Structure formats: structure tokens, C-alpha cells
């Protein structure tokens, strides 16, 4: 291969590594909060553009003895990671302005994206675990970023303990898989003896449990609301977008390649496990979100519910469902990051924490309120917004598979209807206020340019992705089929 081609194909991660080095040097020479934020945002934007180009043109390059293979799938995930992290960095300006140090946050965001990028590209379970931990460790630091705040510390401790336990479970699962198959590579071809097939099953179940903590599937979700609530807003946005998609990236990476062989050799029907997890997760998340009064907590529970919908894509296990899952993750990350950024803006500008505080905010900040409305409607599943399209296709995929899998679609539709209630409550509060309260006098309109850039980006993408879903799904489908074709 032409060395320049190879360099180009490694450039998304190369840009991030370079940015990290520049950040270190910059912090050493002169501490400047704005500059470090701009450097990381620029690097993430560049990575995002490069990944978009490379994902759409279907390139493949292997790195470090084929331990990491960057193909369309990895680049596709790279787009999601770098785009969401870019949104985080753009919206973090006022938070970092108040923080003591800004350089570490930018660095951790870059390193987290770097780790996540490698998660999506690893072909080896041990390497996957190590880079997964790298990305997770970066988020520990981000959650604990407000060092003086007790809530932040509590959130970080809870998150760290759960993260450490899940890391232990994952590594135990990997070791059992290694014992059963004699190999740690993620490959579609492996063999087991008749006795060790059950060992393989136990290992795979442990992997599902371990990664289930990261994506907050139902029985493993308990850390999520407290952590999301206690963490500073940029960290919450990062957790809800980059970190959650990374958990799915690991699962997709493993089950897309190894899934059929696990079913054939181990006899483990992992699709049913994902299906059950999916129904439980979406139902629980929606029911819990119904009774929340805090906006941040409501969004946290709704992100649990969204994990449930996305798990359908894993449960079906067809190449179409994987492609839809990829599309779903992109739309979810943007809509979720956007709503958290608007919530951050409202909290810092209007001191709005609970859902009741959102009364009449549309009069004070009309553009942000409109964006939040669009994004919440998108999450609820209102056509033609992007998450609706994703949900529609994923339910369509389950109907297409048929049999009992239609239950997933029915559960999903019922849950979407349920979720509309709590999203609509926020929108109602913003536009027509609380019952029996007169509207406040028309005050000065408050929109901050630092927040408006990421908010409007999310708004535009939420609408545009919904309208132009065909291209994205085509790229996603291409990514999935190339991976299942070029596995080793």
C-alpha cells in the first residue's frame, strides 16, 4: 500500500494523537483555558470530517500487526465519537471558564475519543478491553471534574466503583472465552471442544453483563441516574453520547463477528438475551422517567430507555438491523447531546433545574427552546425527525424478521407512546407554562453564542439526518457488510 494512503487512512487517530501532544506542549508553555478548548475542538472537527470522508469511501487499514483494523465500521463510529465530543467541547466553554483548570478536560475528551475509536477498530478482545478501559478512565476524570462539588465526587465514586466491577466482569469473561477457544482474537472462525462450549457461553454472558453496565441495560443501570445528575453538564453530555455509543460499539464489534459462531458452537441464544434486556430496559427507563421532576434525571432515565430501543438492533442480529443500529446511534447521540446542552444552557442562564422551572422559557430563549422541542420530539419519535426514522426502521427490521421478534416492535411502539408524555410535559411547560400561572412579562431575550453553535448544529443535524436517512443507512449498511465480509 502506498504509504501516503496508509497515512491518510490512519489520519483520524493521528490528528487526535497530535492534538494531544500539542495540548501537552501548550499547557507546559502557557496555561490558556480558551486555547486548549479551541485546539481540542479543532482537532475533533478535523477528525470528524476525515472520518466522514473515509467512512463513505470504504477504506481499510490495519495497525499494529492487525490488532486494530480501521474499516468503514470503525470510521463510522469515529464520526459519532468525534462529533459528539466536538459538541461537548463547544458547549464546555462557560463550564471550563469557571473551572480551575481547563487543559485536563480537553485532554481527557481527546483521549476518551481516541480510546473509543480504537474500541471500534480492535480485532482482539484483550486490546479491546484495554482501550475500553482507556476511554472509561477518561470519563472518570471528567465526571469528577468539579472537584469542590460533593455531588460530582459522589457521582464519580459511584461511577468508578460500578466501572471497576464491570471491568472485572469483562476481563473474567474474556479469560473464560480464552480458555474455551484458545484465542483472544475477535474472529468468526474458532473452535471449541464439546466440554468447553459451556465455558464459552458463560464467558459471553459475562461479556454481555460487563458491557451492559456501560450501556446501562436494565438490571445494570443503577449507577446511571446519580452519575448523570452529579456530573458536570459537559461530562454528562459526554457520558450520554460518546461513552454510551462506545459500549454499543464494543458489543457490535464482538457480536457482529463472533455472534453466529457463538450460536453455532456454544449454543447460546444471545439474541434472546438481548431481546429480553431490550424490553426490560426500555420499559423501565420510560416508567422511571415519567415520575422525574428534575430535568437532568428525566433525560438520564430517557437515555436508559433509548438503550432499550437500540438493543433491538443487537437482538435481531441481521445485517439490516445492525445498519439501522448504527444510524440509530448517530441520531441518538446528536439528539441526546443537544438536549443536554440546552439543559445546561437553561441551568446556567435561567437557573432552571426541575421541569417546573422550564415554565415560559420559550419567551426568554426562543431559539434554544425551539431546538429543545425539536430534539425531544425527535427522541419521542415524531416524524420526520431523525430518531423517529431510526425507530421506525428498527421496528420495521423486527417485523421483517418475524416470529416472536415482532414483540420487540410492539413493545417499542407502546414505549414510544409512553415516552411522549414526559417529553411533551417539558415542551408544554416551555410554551404555555404551568397550569394557573400567568406568563411572565416579556424580558430581554437570552441566547448565548457559545451555546448556540452546538445547539443549532444539533438542531440542523436532527432534522437533516431525518430527511436524508438514505445516504447514512447506505453507508452504515456498507460498513456492516464489509466487516462481516472481511473478517479474519
Amino acid at each position: 500500500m502506498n504509504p501516503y494512503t496508509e497515512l491518510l487512512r490512519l489520519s483520524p487517530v493521528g490528528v487526535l494523537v497530535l492534538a494531544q501532544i500539542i495540548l501537552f506542549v501548550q499547557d507546559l508553555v502557557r496555561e490558556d483555558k480558551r486555547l486548549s478548548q479551541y485546539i481540542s475542538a479543532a482537532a475533533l472537527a478535523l477528525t470528524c470530517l476525515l472520518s466522514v470522508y473515509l467512512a463513505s469511501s470504504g477504506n481499510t487499514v490495519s495497525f499494529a500487526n492487525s490488532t486494530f483494523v480501521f474499516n468503514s465500521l470503525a470510521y463510522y463510529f469515529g464520526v459519532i465519537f468525534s462529533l459528539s465530543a466536538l459538541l461537548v467541547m463547544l458547549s464546555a466553554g462557560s463550564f471550563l471558564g469557571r473551572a480551575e483548570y481547563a487543559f485536563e478536560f480537553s485532554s481527557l475528551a481527546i483521549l476518551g475519543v481516541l480510546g473509543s475509536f480504537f474500541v471500534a477498530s480492535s480485532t482482539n478482545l484483550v486490546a479491546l478491553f484495554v482501550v475500553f478501559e482507556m476511554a472509561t478512565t477518561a470519563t472518570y476524570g471528567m465526571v469528577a471534574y468539579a472537584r469542590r462539588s460533593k455531588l460530582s465526587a459522589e457521582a464519580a465514586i459511584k461511577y468508578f466503583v460500578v466501572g471497576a466491577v464491570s471491568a472485572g466482569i469483562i476481563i473474567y469473561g474474556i479469560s473464560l472465552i480464552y480458555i474455551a477457544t484458545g484465542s483472544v482474537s475477535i474472529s468468526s472462525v474458532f473452535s471449541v471442544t464439546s466440554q468447553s462450549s459451556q465455558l464459552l457461553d458463560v464467558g459471553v454472558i459475562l461479556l454481555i453483563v460487563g458491557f451492559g453496565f456501560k450501556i446501562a441495560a436494565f438490571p445494570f443501570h443503577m449507577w446511571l441516574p446519580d452519575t448523570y445528575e452529579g456530573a458536570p453538564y459537559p461530562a454528562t453530555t459526554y457520558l450520554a453520547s460518546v461513552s454510551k455509543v462506545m459500549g454499543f460499539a464494543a458489543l457490535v464489534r464482538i457480536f457482529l463477528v463472533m455472534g453466529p459462531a457463538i450460536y453455532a458452537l456454544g449454543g447460546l441464544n444471545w439474541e434472546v438475551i438481548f431481546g429480553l434486556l431490550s424490553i426490560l430496559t426500555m420499559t423501565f427507563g420510560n416508567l422511571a422517567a415519567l415520575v422525574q421532576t428534575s430535568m437532568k434525571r428525566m433525560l438520564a432515565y430517557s437515555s436508559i430507555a433509548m438503550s432499550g430501543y437500540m438493543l433491538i438492533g443487537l437482538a435481531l442480529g441481521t445485517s439490516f438491523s445492525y445498519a439501522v443500529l448504527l444510524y440509530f446511534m448517530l441520531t441518538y447521540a446528536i439528539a441526546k447531546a443537544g438536549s443536554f446542552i440546552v439543559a445546561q444552557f437553561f441551568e446556567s442562564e435561567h437557573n432552571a433545574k426541575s421541569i417546573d422551572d422550564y415554565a415560559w422559557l420559550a419567551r426568554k430563549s426562543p431559539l434554544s427552546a425551539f431546538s429543545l422541542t425539536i430534539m425531544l420530539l425527535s427522541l419521542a419519535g415524531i416524524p420526520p425527525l431523525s430518531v423517529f426514522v431510526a425507530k421506525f426502521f428498527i421496528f420495521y427490521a423486527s417485523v421483517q424478521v418475524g416470529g416472536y421478534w415482532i414483540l420487540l416492535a410492539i413493545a417499542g411502539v407502546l414505549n414510544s407512546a409512553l415516552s411522549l408524555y414526559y417529553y411533551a410535559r417539558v415542551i408544554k411547560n416551555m410554551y404555555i407554562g404551568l397550569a394557573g400561572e400567568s406568563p411572565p412579562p416579556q424580558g430581554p431575550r437570552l441566547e448565548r453564542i457559545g451555546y448556540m453553535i452546538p445547539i443549532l448544529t444539533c438542531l440542523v443535524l436532527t432534522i437533516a439526518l431525518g430527511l436524508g436517512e438514505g445516504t447514512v443507512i447506505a453507508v452504515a449498511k456498507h460498513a456492516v457488510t464489509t466487516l462481516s465480509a472481511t473478517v479474519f
Partner: protein
Amino acid sequence: MAYSEILFMFVAGVTIISALGVVVSKEIVRSAAYLILALVGVAAAFSLMDSLFMAMIQLLIYAGAVMVLFLFGVMLTRKEAPAKRRRLLSRTNLSYLILSVVLFFLVARSGLMDTSVLGGIPGPVSAIAPSLYTEFKGVLYALAGLLVTVGLGAIYIVKKEANEGKNA
């Protein structure tokens, strides 16, 4: 039964009992002491399985270095036992017990037949480096990234306040 098997049973028994001791012990420093005993037991089990290298790494890193960090944390935070006495037969402990028994039987049912595969003859120690630097070179790079991240996060959390440094 061979002499080495009896020894292995003894070592395994000590390891399990001290692992139980970690959970059951009321005083947290005692728990740490039992944990060290358990880790040393694992090291002994490694050495009995013809893998002295692994045994010594276990001793150097876990029983030696990691446990010292644990002990620093434990001894610096609180010396006396928690005021509320933990009950041995609580619901939490019961769920741990059930989970571990289920896991044990799942692994045992499939794994017990495989002892011949598991206890394979290990290669020479000198084979570790070549495989580490060629076959698993990507994992090594990943570890470098992990260490940078961990260092950055940890240093940030313990870093002095920004204005604190100027006054001092």
C-alpha cells in the same frame, strides 16, 4: 494422591478461606491482611502449576505493590471498625453467595473436564517478550494510551488548587 496434589489442595483451601475472611472480617485492615494471604495463595498455586514466573509477578505486583496502595488508603481513612456491625446473614451477602455458587457451578460443569488443556506445559519465560512485542504489540500501544489517561486523570484529581500554589 501425589504429594504435590495434597500441597495444591492445601494452598487452594487457604486461598478460599482467606478470600472468605476478606468478606467476613469486621475490621477493614484485617480484611486487607486476608486479601494479601489470598493473593499469596494464588501465587503459590501458580508456582505449583509450574509457572514460577507468574507466581513471582503476582507476588511483586499484587501482594507487594497493589496491596500497599490499598493499605495506604485503608489506614489513612479510618482506623476503627464501622459503628454499625455488619450482619453475616444479610440479604446482600446472600445474593453474593448465590451468585458465586451459580457461577462456580457454571464454570465447574464445563471446566472440570478441561484440566488437561488448562494445565498445559507453559513455554519458557523468554518466549514472553517476543510475543509481547510482535503479536501483542497493539495491546502494548493501548496500554501506553491507558497509562497516559490514568496519569492525567489521577494527577488532575490530586492537583493543588490553582490559587493555592500562588499563595504558597
